[in-house]
């Protein structure tokens, strides 16, 4: 068990190790001083939170350390003890034995410290409001701790392993590379800790008070209570940013230990030999590619007719082809019915496809079937805060206000678009309105990234959207196989696709290929500004980059791409409807 430095004097980020009070193999008890940390003439005695034995001391007296550094490793036997001593008369206590009370007044109280809540808090502080943020778990919320960031860390590790396995084709010979899941998870944890620490720092720099407890709205105040402290917060306005949680479908066997959601699989301590994934949406497919690259045999069971079926057909075709070549088994139009435990570690997933019943054997099952908004129905009902019938999250208007004037809601709890950047922007709009600036939230130009291999980036209107709403559109496309940089990278699958309306104004784009999630940003701005194809014809893109394909795809709308002979190369513009 690693003992890390969690805090220092005041806002200090660095300190010097003073006297180290323990040695290797020394037995320690809860409350014993392990070592001293000095900064700016302030001394903090780091006390043990565990009973156990010191295995190793990883620092030296006189050396500089910072928050997050590991200073000791311990063999902690027994439970983590509360930092209090049983007080007999005359002995000292640390003041933790009695619950203390505090009453706080502020302009804005925010329940939830994820990408919606903490961004709203910072914006509010910038606009001069006094802000309290209430978070029962960790700052950064799902995104930083159990979602976006940790999965991308896994993706990177899986890419490194893939590259090594394919290194021969690049002229590099590597023998015996292995993937170590514990180290992959440790790296992920370090990245997460760094980011969470960064947000804590921002909170203190912006003087935003952070309360570490679950916030419960009672009448007109928010009560957040732990064993040590009861806080009662009276705010002028409240923003609800409680996010969402992964759920499992209610089939027999869903509660078995090795049936995981995304939260648990991010802490897995071994690479599954076989992994069954129920739910072929974004989360399910990202994990399918990650674990396939790490060596698991992966099978995906998807209820709808395609995996990632919100995407256009041409993109799904590339994905299906890739899955076939990588050996990821896809069963679409399939309904998971039951999970059965067999002997040892084996789980059997039973699913039906039309009339057929099938069984897959695996040692782990991942259920990635969706996320439900975290709604405390009773509290909301008592406040007159309504739920939206269409989105089934908290109902909000375009300023993010709920049906109760004092309350706003942002992020996954509104269930409009489950994306971190949407939550952040909703947070900014909500805060601006609270502080008297008129602004409205729009959802029509929201980019999205899918981190499988190859990556996918989409923004604006897709072909499926246009068809469904009866918009006449044109398409320009450029394959990465015709792009020099992609060839040098050995990553030639996929394409850039741009969609315009009949008047050649860019209304949507999709990219599938290496770096797609970064490249899509170029299109977001063009779509917002209603850029015409002609406006971009003379924009220069550097060579050799994969981004050049963006230019070529746009040229292709009029049949004028240079490095490809276009399907659109006809004299008269034919609109595809």
């Amino acid at each position, binding site marked *: 068990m690693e003992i890390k430095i969690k805090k220092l004097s005041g806002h200090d980020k660095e300190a010097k190790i003073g006297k180290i009070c323990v040695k290797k193999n020394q037995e320690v008890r809860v409350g014993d001083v392990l070592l*001293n940390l000095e900064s*700016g003439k*302030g001394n903090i005695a780091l006390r043990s939170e565990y009973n156990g034995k010191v295995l190793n001391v990883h620092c030296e007296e006189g050396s500089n350390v910072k928050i997050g550094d590991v200073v000791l490793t311990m063999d902690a036997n027994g439970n983590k003890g509360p930092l209090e001593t049983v007080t007999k008369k005359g002995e000292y206590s640390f003041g933790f034995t009695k619950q203390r009370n505090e009453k706080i007044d502020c302009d804005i109280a925010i329940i939830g410290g994820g990408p919606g809540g903490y961004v709203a808090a910072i914006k509010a502080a910038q606009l001069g409001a006094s802000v309290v943020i209430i978070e029962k778990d960790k700052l950064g919320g799902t995104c930083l701790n159990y979602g976006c960031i940790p999965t991308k860390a896994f993706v990177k590790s899986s890419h490194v392993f893939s590259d090594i396995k394919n290194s021969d084709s690049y002229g590099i010979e590597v023998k015996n590379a292995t993937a170590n899941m514990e180290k992959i998870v440790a790296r992920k944890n370090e990245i997460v800790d760094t980011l969470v620490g960064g947000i804590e720092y921002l909170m203190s720099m912006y003087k935003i008070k952070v309360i570490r407890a679950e916030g419960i709205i009672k009448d007109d105040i928010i009560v957040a209570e732990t064993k040590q402290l009861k806080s009662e917060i009276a705010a002028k306005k409240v923003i609800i940013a409680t996010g969402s949680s992964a759920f499992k479908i209610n089939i027999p066997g869903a509660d078995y230990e090795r049936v995981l959601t995304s939260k648990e699989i991010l802490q897995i301590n071994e690479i599954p030999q076989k992994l069954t994934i129920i739910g072929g949406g974004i989360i399910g497919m990202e994990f399918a590619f990650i674990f396939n690259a790490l060596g698991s045999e992966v099978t995906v069971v998807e209820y709808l007719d395609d995996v990632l079926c919100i995407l256009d057909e041409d993109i799904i075709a590339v994905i299906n082809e890739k899955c076939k070549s990588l050996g990821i088994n896809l069963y679409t139009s399939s309904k998971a019915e039951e999970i059965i435990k067999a002997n040892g570690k084996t789980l059997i997933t039973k699913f039906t496809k039309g009339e057929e019943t099938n069984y897959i054997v695996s040692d782990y099952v991942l259920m990635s079937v969706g996320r439900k908004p975290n709604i405390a129905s009773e509290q909301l009902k008592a406040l007159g805060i309504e739920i939206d019938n269409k989105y089934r999250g908290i109902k909000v208007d375009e300023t993010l206000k709920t049906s109760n004037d004092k309350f706003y809601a942002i992020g996954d709890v509104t269930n409009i678009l489950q994306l971190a950047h949407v939550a952040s922007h909703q947070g900014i709009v909500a805060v601006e309105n609270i502080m008297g600036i008129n602004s409205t939230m729009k959802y029509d130009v929201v980019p999205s990234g899918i981190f499988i291999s190859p990556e996918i980036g989409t923004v604006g209107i897709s072909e499926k959207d246009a068809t469904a709403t009866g918009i006449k559109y044109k398409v320009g496309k450029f394959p990465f196989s015709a792009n020099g940089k992609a060839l040098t990278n050995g990553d030639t699958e996929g394409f850039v696709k741009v969609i315009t309306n009949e008047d050649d104004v860019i209304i949507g784009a999709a990219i599938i290929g290496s770096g797609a999630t970064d490249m899509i940003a170029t299109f977001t701005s063009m779509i917002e500004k209603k850029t015409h194809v002609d406006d971009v014809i003379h924009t220069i893109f550097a060579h050799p980059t994969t981004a050049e394909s963006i230019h070529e795809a746009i040229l292709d709308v009029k049949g004028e791409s240079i490095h490809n002979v276009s399907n659109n190369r006809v004299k008269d513009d034919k609109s595809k409807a």
Partner: protein
Amino acid sequence: MCRIIESKTINPKLNLAFEEFLVKNANEDTNILFLWQNDETVVIGRNQNPWSECNIENIKKDDINLVRRLTGGGAVFHDLGNLNFTFISKNTDTKIEENFNIIIDSLAKLGVISKFTGKNDLVVDERKISGNAFVVEGDVLCHHGTLLVDANLNRLSYYLNVSELKLKSKGIQSVRARVTNVKSIKSDITVENVRTQIIESFMERFGQDTNLEVYDEKRIQKTLTNFENRYEKWSWNYGSSPNFEIVFEDRFSWGEIQINLNVNDAEITDVKIFTDSNDPLLAKLIESKLINIRFDRNEILKSIGTINKVEIKDISNLLKSKIF
């Protein structure tokens, strides 16, 4: 609840123990101002090495107290011309600044304009009049400082002047500063009226609802009945130092000798001796007598004294002249 506590004892071991007791019994409502003085005492910071930061020889010779405090920072000298103040309260972002303002206010009312420097000191015209240090225990902040009113500045440098020991220490080093007495700026100031003014300024800021409690030696001892007083122990004041290496060397008629000691928790844990003396056993014998004993003058001399060799007299004198 505000309390103003005055100590009437000038025993540093009692004052520091009492201060520690007040800190460990504090809670989020505590707001204490503690005023105290010590008779001639050197006080070192938690993470300091007394052998490298003070002149132990002079300290021992004059029988001066040396105590280690729980807060960080460097070595200071207390005498009866110095007034110590301690603020004990819940740890908040602004408390330290508020505390300093009380002291600055008090001095201003007595006609002395002082300033807070980035080093957590108070200065008047670039000269230091108050050194401060801090410790945080859970949610409680202890902020204390010295205030040089009419101290004997010569004695100060006599005891805080490092003697020439060849010592490599990982402890926190004192930062020497140019110090001055407040009295030299305004001659009618005394410890008494500074003390009274600080009490008034504290009451002004925190309301009249404060008690003034006076603790004499007996009352403090009673309060500390079941409280372990670490300041009575060599193992805390000297022993709880960061580790260090120290070298003693000299040339004698029989040859040169260099004695390297590694001292951990004030115990000698490693000895390496280099000598060109003709006696092949000398180094080994000394090493065996020094290893695993306390880095304490008497113990060292006693242990070496049992070696029956002619060179020992010279070596003992060498160690005797350096270790205190």
